[in-house]
């Protein structure tokens, strides 16, 4: 079972209290972008076995969106953080590096 701590209300809850929202840190391509960029934005998603960054919503709770760094294989959660960020906070990246040396995910490592 996945246990997440919502950074918005401070509740530590189990998976069924939250709703997954797909990949985090997406760069949006809309009007004015090329067909390739738009296609990649819409359909090319990461699906790693290991370190992953996701959007979650505290659906049965405070209702807010946040981001989570976790491991899809071990279900370990490295940390949750504000959705108003462009990249994972350094302390969470350090935590991942300690557990999974040499990890990388899109442009982050």
């Amino acid at each position, binding site marked *: 079972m996945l246990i997440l701590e919502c950074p*918005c*209300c*401070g*509740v530590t*809850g*189990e998976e*069924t*209290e939250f709703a997954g929202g797909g990949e985090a840190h997406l760069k949006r391509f809309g009007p004015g972008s090329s067909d390739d960029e738009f296609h990649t934005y819409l359909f090319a998603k990461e699906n790693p076995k290991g370190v992953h960054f996701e959007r979650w919503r505290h*659906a*049965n*709770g*405070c*209702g*807010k969106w946040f981001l989570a760094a976790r491991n899809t294989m071990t279900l370990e959660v490295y940390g949750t953080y504000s959705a108003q960020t462009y990249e994972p906070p350094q302390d969470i990246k350090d935590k991942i590096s300690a557990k999974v040396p040499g990890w990388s995910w899109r442009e982050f490592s």
Partner: protein
Amino acid sequence: MSSAVSALGGARYEGYVRVEEQGLRGMITLRGDLNSAKMKKAVLDVTGVKLPKQREILHEGDKAVAWMSPDELLVMVPYDAVSETLASLEKALKGNHFLAVIVSDARAVFCLSGDDVREIVAKLCPVDMAPTTFAPGQIRRTRMAQIAAAFWMTSEKQIEIVCFRSVAQYAFDLLKDAAEPRGEVGAFL
């Protein structure tokens, strides 16, 4: 003019814990910047209750204010006082970015009372109900079986639960089932 009634007309079940649907309660969803001095003052002036901190619920006489999210409060007042309270809040917050809406008739309220109230909630919600983790003064929004709900303790032997009115019967049946005699677990006694 028709008279307002609560969802289940005060339905009641005597199990090893008493489950009771409460009468109508005035409720206002108030959203805005909870850190602003204006908001703190407005809530205190209008309700007489201080602005609660994260996951807190504060009572003052027949009024209460609960922290629902970083930008949302639930203001509870007697049912008949709700329009007046809304008007006062709107006046106090005029010129600020905020939203205040009466939700009284969109909610149902239940009260559990008895020695084992903690375990009734523990049976239905994915929440640690140990006294060291959850205590009077706190509010918890969560999932109760298949519906969204929020609850708080008014004392060690009493829990109030609020959910959407449209699922009031479902909520009552859940609580009734959990309070069925011979279903005692004794986890928190």
